[in-house]
Structure formats: structure tokens, C-alpha cells
């Protein structure tokens, strides 16, 4: 069940843009030592801050270019609203992050393309509602979008307890990865260029990785990131089965995969009955009309649901 079909062209564009976007996160590892390179290190982060939103816009436009089905779009909006409402619940309490578990579960049920869009729209809506728009937002959106995409790419055949275990493990790993990416983005900005924790242009990748590891361990890994990973995994284990069931039920009712066909109108109805009074014999079977549906309680529930 995928709510959003990803065409091969879209997949190629997604991969290309992700590679370019990864460079905007990881550029400190790649900067050479030459003096011109040093001059460029001051401008590179600012250039990338401009580049990334455009890349993100191109990918989002491409994902939406096939025309998103209205049911998928409404689902996307509503789930993004739930995510945006969940986010402030955790903010302020050290490391409790409530965004990821629904993102992972929804990505799992509705597929990779939907997960990508949900990650991006959730953080955007949340920024508009509470958190604030800033240069960090495109980076957050992209990292969360990757989290949703990855959840959709997990092996499809798992069900039951194994599925929950895999999802909880994925959620924990994704939470750490998200924290690492955000640290990586903020690293050159937070420490400046010439402390012992800063990246060294031209140094071997391993040395810079080591410095980054120290930086991220000092600042956040043991507090925020661990808190986020634990919250996500515990939430998936506790409410995962129920939420998965609710999402799958919604997906079934929406019937995203159902082919839409326009049937030709039925042949002209039977000519109107002649004005002569009908014969007293009751009609045994009126074939021009569909058989009436017997109204059982189940049918009544489905038909007369408030709000449909």
C-alpha cells in the first residue's frame, strides 16, 4: 500500500538531490587545505544555506508533480498537524522528542514517498505554528524527510511483533542519525573556526571525524540524542500496534490503490410505465433497479456515520 507513487524519474531526482544535500551537511570533512580553500570555507556555509531550500523545493515539487491524490493530500495534512501538535509536548523537557514515532509509523504504512513528504511538511507546519522559521528549518525538514523515507523502505513483509521490534530499532537509530546530522550542520556555526573542536580544513577525514565526534559527544549525544532515541523507541513499542492498526484501517478505507475508471452510463432506463393502472399482481422481480440493501446495524454504522 503506497499512498504516493514514486515514478522512476522522481526516484532519480530524489537521489541526486539527496547527494547534493548531504554535501551541504558534511562539507567540513571535504574542505581542502589550500589557501583558496580556506577563503572558501567562510563563504561555503552561507552558499549552502541558500542552496538547500532550493534543492528541497525542487524535490518537493517533483514529488507532487504527478498530482497528489486528494485523499493522500488530506491524510498528509492531517498527520502533519498531529505531528506539529505533538512536537511542543516534548520541547523543554530534556531530550523528550515526540515527533518521530508517528513519522516512522506513517512512513511504514503509507510508503517512502509519503514518509518523505510527511517529514518535510510536519516540521514546516510545526515551525509556522510554534517553533519559528530560521536558517535551520530546511536542514531539519530534509533530515526528518529522510527519516520518513527510510521508514517506508523497511522490508514490507514483516508483521506482528517482529515489525514492532524492527520499527522501534529503526526509530532509535534514526533519532541518533537526525541528531548527528543537525550537529553536523551546526558544527561550523557554533564553534567558529579556530578552537580545538573546530574542523581543520585539509586535515584527513578521520581526524575531522574524531573532532566532530568529540564535539557531538560533548554537546548533545548523551543528553538530547539519547533522550530522543529512547522516547521514540518506547513510544513505538507502547502505542505502535494500535497506531499501526488505525493507520492501516484509514489506508484501507481510503483505497489509494483502487484504479479510477469512468464507466459508461447505463443504457437508457426502461420506458416510463404507461398511465394505465398497474395490474394487481405484485411485481416479482424488478430487474431495472438494484436490489435493496438490507440495513443491518453494521451497514447503518457505515452509512450514517456523522461527519461523512
Amino acid at each position, binding site marked *: 500500500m503506497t499512498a504516493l507513487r514514486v515514478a522512476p524519474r522522481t526516484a532519480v531526482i530524489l537521489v541526486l538531490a539527496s547527494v*547534493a544535500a548531504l554535501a551541504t551537511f558534511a562539507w567540513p570533512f571535504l574542505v581542502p587545505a589550500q589557501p583558496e580553500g580556506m577563503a*572558501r570555507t567562510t563563504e561555503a556555509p552561507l552558499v549552502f544555506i541558500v542552496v538547500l531550500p532550493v534543492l528541497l523545493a*525542487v524535490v518537493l515539487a517533483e514529488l507532487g*508533480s504527478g498530482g497528489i491524490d*486528494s485523499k493522500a493530500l488530506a491524510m498528509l495534512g492531517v498527520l502533519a498537524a*498531529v505531528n506539529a501538535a505533538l512536537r511542543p509536548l516534548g520541547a523543554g523537557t530534556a531530550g523528550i522528542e515526540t515527533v518521530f514515532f508517528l513519522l516512522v509509523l506513517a512512513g511504514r504504512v503509507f510508503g517512502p514517498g509519503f514518509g518523505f513528504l510527511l517529514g518535510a511538511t510536519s516540521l514546516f507546519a510545526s515551525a509556522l505554528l510554534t517553533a519559528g522559521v530560521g536558517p535551520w528549518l530546511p536542514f531539519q525538514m530534509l533530515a526528518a524527510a529522510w527519516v520518513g523515507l527510510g521508514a517506508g523502505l523497511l522490508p514490507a513483509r514483516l508483521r506482528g511483533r517482529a515489525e514492532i521490534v524492527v520499527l522501534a530499532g529503526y526509530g532509535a537509530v534514526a533519532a541518533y542519525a537526525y541528531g548527528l546530522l543537525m550537529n553536523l550542520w551546526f558544527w561550523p556555526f*557554533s564553534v567558529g573556526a579556530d*578552537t580545538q573542536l573546530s574542523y581543520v580544513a585539509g586535515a584527513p577525514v578521520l581526524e575531522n571525524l574524531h573532532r566532530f565526534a568529540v564535539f557531538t559527544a560533548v554537546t548533545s549525544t548523551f543528553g538530547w540524542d539519547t533522550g530522543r532515541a529512547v522516547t521514540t523507541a518506547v513510544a513505538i513499542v507502547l502505542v505502535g500496534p494500535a497506531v499501526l492498526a488505525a493507520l492501516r484501517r484509514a489506508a484501507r478505507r481510503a483505497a489509494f490503490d483502487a484504479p479510477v475508471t469512468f464507466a459508461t452510463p447505463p443504457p437508457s432506463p426502461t420506458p416510463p410505465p404507461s398511465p394505465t393502472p398497474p395490474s394487481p399482481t405484485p411485481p416479482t422481480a424488478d430487474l431495472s433497479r438494484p436490489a435493496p440493501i438490507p440495513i443491518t446495524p453494521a451497514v447503518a454504522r457505515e452509512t450514517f456515520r456523522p461527519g461523512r
Partner: protein
Amino acid sequence: MTDRVATGQRVAESETQAWAAGRRASARYPRLPRGLHPVAWWLWALGLATAASHTTNPLALAMLIAGAALVVVRRRGDAPWALAFRMYLVLGAVIVAMRIVFRLVFGGGQGDHVLFQLPEIPLPAVAAGIRLFGPVAVEQLLGGFYDGLRLAAMLICLGAANALANPRRLLKAVPGALYAVSTAVVVALSVAPQLVESVLRVRRARRLRGATGRGLRALRGVALPVLADALDRSLALAAAMDSRGYGRTAAVPAGQRALTGGLVLAGLLGVCVGTYGLLDVSVPGYLGLPMLFIGLSTAVVGMLSGGRQVRRSRYRPDRWRVAELAVAGCGVATAAVTMLAGSVDPVLLYPPVSPLTWPELTPLMVLAVVVAVAPAWLAPPPNRGNIRPEAYR
């Protein structure tokens, strides 16, 4: 009775006075309060942020921050996002403090003017042989302060745009290619308040059934029905959108669609090459920034041409008028004047940390700040709920 009559008269009098004051104000300032086009505010703020990125002079940066704050205070509405500007100021202060603290703790101790000595703590080899604390020099702290202040100023400029521009109107102005995604965001923004109502409804229903559970069970008992309610709501919303003609697309020939895809693909390839060229100086220079921007603009052109497929109509679109032009022009002019100042006198825009010097201002920098502040008067007054006309002055 007479009291009431007198009160009524007094109210009527004060209303007449307010009306007269409003007439006087509007005679002198014949502009109706209205929200400016959000793109104009963003262009203005991006211009200021560009200007801030081209200097580390603390005097110029402080004046830019003060100017942005003045415009925000005079021209923001009373919407929730308009009140978030304080958060950006706090965040800017945190960034400056963080830079200084990092230099204090991890700085190598460069500089001649040592302020004080802290005991050194060498870390084990696992931590790359880093040494904590040590001598603290003025140059080191000042370097951190200048860098941090520049970053904080850029952030605060963006915060100003955030406070001034209406995000919902901005979502209306996105290009057609992003129509679907922006519709999803609009749905999210309008559904979020309904969730609160849904939570209240579910809790009331639980209480009617006599459920008194607390803790985790109660949380599940509330959260899952709210989720199910939201999902059902999304289906109802989809039906409503279908019945109102969402998803109407224009017929685009296959050739045009192939062209769109080709442009986007080629553009992204260009971006990848350009990013590589920007970071690797051994490749020729034209593979760096120029390639990056050629690729980026190709991809954007492809994206915009893809938007032709979308057909939509706008309800009360924002117009681009003289005030919008003036505000956006102020932002561009601020950036241009600062760059000009930088090419005329680079030393004053990047005051050296060693030897220690007092930062100075040039007339060009002052001019840039004056241009940056001008929208406080050029922009029309905001549409606030109830406000005295005198406040517009």
C-alpha cells in the same frame, strides 16, 4: 438614569474625538492599514541578512539589529507569529554566549593580551589530546564575539521577516509547482486547532462513560480516538476537496513534460558538480560557484515549468504595490550599500582583532542602516485588532 445618559454622552464624545483623530491622521497619512505582501518583507530581511553577513563590525551589526527591531515593533500585527520576535533576540544572545564560552573552554589561548589564567585540564588521547581552559586572551574572546554577533544579526533579521510576514499569505504566493505541498501545509495549519477540540470531545465522552483512569491508560484512551478521529476527518476533507474541484490539471503535452524532467535532472547534476567544485580547489574555478548557480537555476526553471500543469484560482490575491516595491528595494539597497562600503574600506568592515583596535563607522555604513530602517515609515501600518489612530504616526 442621568448617570447612564451622561456616560452615554461621554462615550459618544470620545467616539467622536477618536473619529476626528482618525480623520486627521488619515488626512495626514492617507494610507489604510493593511498587511504588506509577505514576499516584500522576506526580500527586505534577506537584504539585511546579506548586509550583516558582509561585516563583523560590532557597531554596524548592533545598528542593524536595532533597526530591524524598530521596524518590527512599528509594523508587526498582533498575530501569534508576530510575537515570536523576542525568541529570536534570545536565540541570538545564546549564539553569542555559546561562541564565547566555546573559546573560553576549548580555545587554544592565542593572543597577547592575556586577561586571566584558568587551570589547564589535559584530556586523554581518546579526545584528540584536547586541552580545556588555559590562558584566556582578549583577542580570542573578541574574535568569538564578533563572529557570534554576525551570526546573531543574520538570525535576527530573518526573525524580523518571520514576525512581519504572514505565513498563510506566503503559502498562497508559492509557485504552482509547490501547490500540492503548500496545500498540505495549509491543511495542517487549519487542522491543528481542531485537534484541541477533538481532545476535549474525547475526554468528555470518556468521563460520561465513567472512565476515571489516569496515567498511561488514560493517555492511550484519549490519544488513539483522537488519531482515529483525525484520520476520518482527512477522508471527509478529501471528499470535500474532490467535490470542489481539487486536482484539476491542465493538459500538458508529453514533450513539455519530458523537457521539465530533463531540466530538473540536468540542473541537479549541475548542482552536484558545482558543490564538488566549490569544495575542491584543484578543479577549474568555473566548476565551482558558477556551475552551482547555473545548475540551481536550471532546476528551478524546470520546477516552474512543471507548475504549468496546475490550474488554480486565487481568492483575494496579494497585490504588488508601491509600498511593497519600496520595502523590498530598501532591503536590496542595504545589501548593495554594505557591499560597496566593503569594497571601499574593507578594514573598517572587518575590524582586526589583533592588534586591538576600536571599531569605527563609515558614512556608507550609516547610510546602509538608515535605508534598512526606512520601512518603519514606508510600509503601511499593520492591520491590528483595535488600535488608536495616533499610534500610526
